[in-house]
């Protein structure tokens, strides 16, 4: 029947907008088609023409009445099936989403608070993830880098030892390198100081690193006579040689020696760190016994050979090292390198930041957790106020699953918004983190926030959304319809939900306490550091590195004369109060260590390694200029010259340690490689040589100072590179330029570098502590704010719920003060419960911070008490407004509520 087809078409078209379940739609269409058929037949039977009958029949469908009526009937009663069962899940999702956005827009305060809390948590975690992925997850930029290892637990070997390891090892291909080979580049405009590393010829092969230009080192390139070669970093090639490809094969003057450029590394190559500007071969000459076995102790790395395990390599290096002791041409202590082992190179490179990473990750994780708890608590409160809405929706036929999905959509939407804002925050947090972890951290400088972060944040957002949305959603969807509708959603909220919120808030406060205590401890530690007396006065002191080639000092007199003249001329510059020179500055990071034999302390070479000392080489005004007190004896004078009787000044700590209760003046020490004893003529006050917190490496046993003309390095040379130290008047802006000019006049091949104030050195040494403290202050501040908001939310909500009860109390004679106290006590109870949990947790957790604390116990009672005070203030603050409101309740109004 052709008409039926037409009716069906017309009806189906009208039902399109309804999105009915297909079965239901077919049913309706069938029923209506039959009706229209019958009507049409009747009209024909009564004498209408076909066209007339058709027109009249279709009139019954005209207008939007059918759609509107069916929409209200079908939709209000029967919800679409859920999730996977839904024929159009995406349609339902977009509907949920639109609804969620509408609901969130309707309460902008709540939305802003929730999104901000989450952004803080998610942003921090995204930043942390970028760092973590770079440091702990992303492999080192070398092929098969998991097989790269490094000798650890000391693990420093002389050139002869390296050669022995290379020859004897069956489990590894061993390479050595010696960082901190700074050499002058001359003949290219102004003389320039470059930072370099000397490496064994196989180092690039062991790493698996290729050159960008030219060739790498080959076997034999580290043999004497063939080792005047250099490989440049990409940056030096670009900046100093204008990226000229013809550089390969050219001979350049480096450290006063001609070296042939054989290669240029790619820009990404940064071994051992990204400050390295060139690589030269190690000088391995077995005929020079002293150089081969007694100097240039260096770290070694290796690549595990195919089929060998880390454990095998660890056993092997132990036994090889033990047997190596016999090879030394002088009696080497039996305890030398006794605990040596090999560990994965990556593990070694992150060992110094590992703990910091863990601590920061924990802290940032806590912030996210607090944010989630806070949002969950906010959602719970909202769920309570939306109870009537939910009950109505349920009454209209929405299933529990349907409501759950709607609420979860809302919380995931919140989380995604938080995530988006979080990414913006993350890039800010990221730069702060980089500073906190130390910029020289392996691979960190090249870390970017990439797609992984976006992915991570998205996943985290959704998980967070589900996590904090679940409890409130469950709570909101489980309700007693009749009770809710009858009471208008006011008092049926139930004690259970109140308890859940209280527990959440107690947890939140506890977490905030942990962060606040951590921040407090770090602040105190920083405060203690700031009050440390470094042992010298850094104000108004300018320092300039002046570094002639070591070859200039082959004639000691030449170097001595150069610096004498430079000091004399510098002293003449107006505004200069005092000037001295030293081989190193306190807190400048390089450690001029020399093995020293101390009189009265028998040194048995075959038993022990000689004690290492911080060995300063200074000109006479050094102590006066630095305001380092001479506690006994005398300072150096100009008569302590090259040929006069050798003398030293020792640090007070060294004197106490080696000659307790004795007069150190007149005692003697000598470098282990020198025969002549040096007499102690003075005792200088202790100086924080390494950093303010005095984290000197374990192997440093004290400090000695030698007069510059008599001084000696571990390489048995006069130090060539010295730092000019100038105490100036107020105005010394042009001083660096004038000193540069003086040096250039004296010797144009001597570069001047590292111009800075002594104060900046001191400040820099606490930079990481400061940034870490700042991070914790931010975390703790955010946590406390969130906890306060959470507490306020719970207390003010429960006060609103108790309006009736409070009305009764007032009616029965409770005073305003009683009511005020009642509400405030509730806030205090919550916070104090959280405080108790938090303090106990802190006692357990802050031990992790101990490594970052200076002169501050991880359980410092002062900080714990202070935090208790802060939290009580938070409780009073959070409870004050609701308490005021409660005290103002008019019993007549309150009792009339229902």
């Amino acid at each position, binding site marked *: 029947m052709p008409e039926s087809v037409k009716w069906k078409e017309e009806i189906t078209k009208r039902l399109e907008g309804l999105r009915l379940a297909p079965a239901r739609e077919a*049913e*309706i269409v069938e*029923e*209506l088609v*039959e*009706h*229209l058929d*019958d*009507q049409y037949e*009747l009209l024909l039977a*009564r004498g209408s023409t076909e066209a007339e009958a058709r027109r*009249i029949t279709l*009139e*019954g*469908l*005209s*207008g939007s*009445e*059918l759609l509107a*009526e*069916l929409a*209200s*009937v*079908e939709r209000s*009663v*029967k919800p679409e099936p859920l999730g996977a069962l839904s024929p159009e899940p995406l349609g339902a999702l977009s509907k949920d989403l639109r609804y969620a956005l509408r609901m969130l827009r309707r309460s902008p305060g709540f939305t802003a608070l929730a999104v901000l809390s989450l952004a803080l948590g998610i942003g921090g975690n995204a930043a942390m993830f970028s760092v973590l992925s770079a440091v702990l997850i992303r492999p080192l930029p070398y092929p098969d880098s998991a097989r790269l290892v490094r000798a650890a637990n000391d693990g420093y070997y002389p050139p002869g030892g390296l050669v022995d390891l290379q020859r004897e090892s069956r489990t590894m291909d061993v390479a050595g390198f010696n960082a901190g080979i700074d050499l002058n580049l001359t003949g290219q405009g102004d003389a320039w100081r470059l930072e370099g590393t000397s490496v064994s010829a196989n180092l690039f092969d062991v790493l698996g690193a290729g050159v960008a230009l030219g060739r790498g080192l080959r076997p034999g390139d580290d043999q004497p006579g063939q080792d005047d070669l250099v490989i440049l970093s990409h940056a030096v090639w670009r900046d100093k040689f204008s990226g000229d490809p013809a550089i390969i094969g050219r001979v350049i003057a480096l450290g006063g020696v001609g070296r042939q450029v054989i290669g240029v590394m790619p820009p990404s190559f940064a071994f051992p760190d990204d400050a390295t500007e060139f690589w030269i071969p190690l000088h391995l000459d077995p005929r020079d016994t002293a150089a081969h076995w007694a100097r240039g102790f260096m770290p070694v790395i290796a690549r595990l050979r195919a089929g060998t395990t880390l454990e095998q390599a660890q056993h092997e290096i132990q036994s090889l090292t033990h047997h190596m002791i016999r090879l030394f041409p002088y009696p080497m202590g039996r305890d030398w390198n006794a605990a040596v082992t090999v560990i994965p190179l990556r593990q070694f490179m992150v060992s110094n930041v590992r703990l910091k990473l863990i601590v920061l990750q924990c802290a940032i994780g806590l912030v996210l957790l607090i944010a989630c708890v806070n949002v969950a608590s906010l959602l719970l409160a909202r769920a309570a106020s939306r109870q009537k809405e939910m009950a109505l929706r349920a009454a209209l036929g929405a299933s529990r699953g349907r409501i759950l999905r709607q609420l979860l959509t809302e919380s995931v939407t919140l989380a995604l918004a938080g995530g988006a804002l979080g990414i913006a925050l993350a890039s800010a947090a990221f730069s702060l983190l980089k500073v906190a972890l130390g910029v020289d951290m392996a691979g960190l400088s090249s870390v970017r926030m990439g797609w992984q972060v976006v992915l991570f944040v998205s996943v985290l957002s959704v998980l967070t959304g589900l996590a904090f949305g679940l409890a409130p959603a469950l709570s909101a969807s489980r309700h007693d319809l009749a009770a809710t509708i009858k009471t208008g959603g006011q008092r049926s909220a139930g004690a259970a939900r109140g308890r859940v919120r209280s527990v959440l808030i107690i947890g939140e406060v506890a977490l905030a306490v942990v962060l606040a205590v951590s921040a407090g401890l770090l602040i105190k530690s920083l405060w203690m550091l700031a009050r440390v007396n470094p042992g010298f006065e850094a104000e108004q002191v300018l320092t300039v590195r002046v570094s002639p080639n070591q070859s200039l000092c082959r004639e000691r007199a030449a170097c001595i004369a150069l610096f004498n003249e430079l000091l004399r001329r510098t002293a003449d510059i107006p505004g200069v109060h005092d000037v001295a020179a030293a081989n190193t500055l306190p807190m400048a990071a390089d450690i001029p260590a020399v093995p020293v034999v101390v009189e009265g302390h028998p040194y048995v070479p075959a038993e022990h390694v000689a004690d290492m000392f911080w060995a300063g080489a200074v000109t006479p005004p050094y102590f006066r200029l630095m305001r380092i007190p001479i506690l006994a004896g005398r300072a150096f004078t100009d008569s302590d010259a090259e040929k006069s009787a050798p003398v030293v000044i020792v640090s007070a700590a060294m004197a106490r340690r080696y000659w307790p209760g004795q007069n150190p003046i007149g005692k003697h020490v000598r470098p282990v490689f020198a025969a002549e004893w040096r007499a102690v003529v003075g005792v200088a006050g202790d100086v924080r040589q390494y950093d303010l917190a005095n984290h000197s490496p374990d192997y440093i046993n004290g400090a000695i100072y030698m007069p510059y003309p008599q001084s000696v390095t571990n390489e048995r040379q006069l130090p060539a590179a010295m730092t000019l130290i100038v105490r100036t008047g107020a105005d010394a802006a042009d001083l660096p330029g004038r000193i540069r000019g003086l040096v250039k006049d004296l010797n144009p091949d001597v570069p001047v570098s590292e111009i800075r104030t002594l104060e900046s050195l001191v400040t820099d040494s606490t930079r990481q502590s400061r940034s870490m403290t700042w991070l914790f202050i931010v975390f703790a501040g955010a946590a406390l704010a969130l906890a306060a908001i959470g507490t306020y939310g719970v207390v003010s909500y429960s006060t609103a719920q108790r309006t009736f009860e409070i009305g009764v109390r007032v009616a029965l004679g409770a005073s305003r003060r009683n009511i005020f106290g009642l509400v405030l006590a509730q806030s205090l109870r919550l916070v104090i419960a959280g405080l108790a949990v938090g303090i106990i947790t802190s006692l357990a957790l802050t031990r992790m911070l101990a490594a970052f604390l200076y002169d501050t116990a991880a359980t410092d009672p002062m900080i714990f008490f202070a935090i208790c005070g802060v939290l009580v203030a938070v409780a009073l603050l959070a409870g004050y407004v609701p308490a005021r409101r409660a005290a103002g309740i008019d019993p007549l109004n309150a009792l009339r509520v229902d």
Partner: protein
Amino acid sequence: MRPVEPGAFDREIKKGSAELLILSLVEVRARHGYDISRLIEERSKGTLCFRVASLYPMLYRLEKRGWIRGRWVEKTGQRRRRYYRLTEQGREVLASQRRGWQVFVEAINRITEAEHA
């Protein structure tokens, strides 16, 4: 013959009485939608006329409320049709609506007749 287009007053009356009409028609025996619409039109002599677009949504609504119940019935030689019958709940509603309607009509009558008397 064309159904008369009811005026505004008729529409209001119809709306208020539509449920009552439908419930009454399925009180004694089950009927399908077209049957119901035809009976209303015939018995009112064309004064009352339900469009398809309003009749069926109303049937569905009554069904959802549980006042009537529809069932597909197949008779030999005919296509299957959906028949609606009154439920127990519907019976109570109908009784109450009838009383209300009678009260209303009597009241209207008293007022309008008094004016003519």
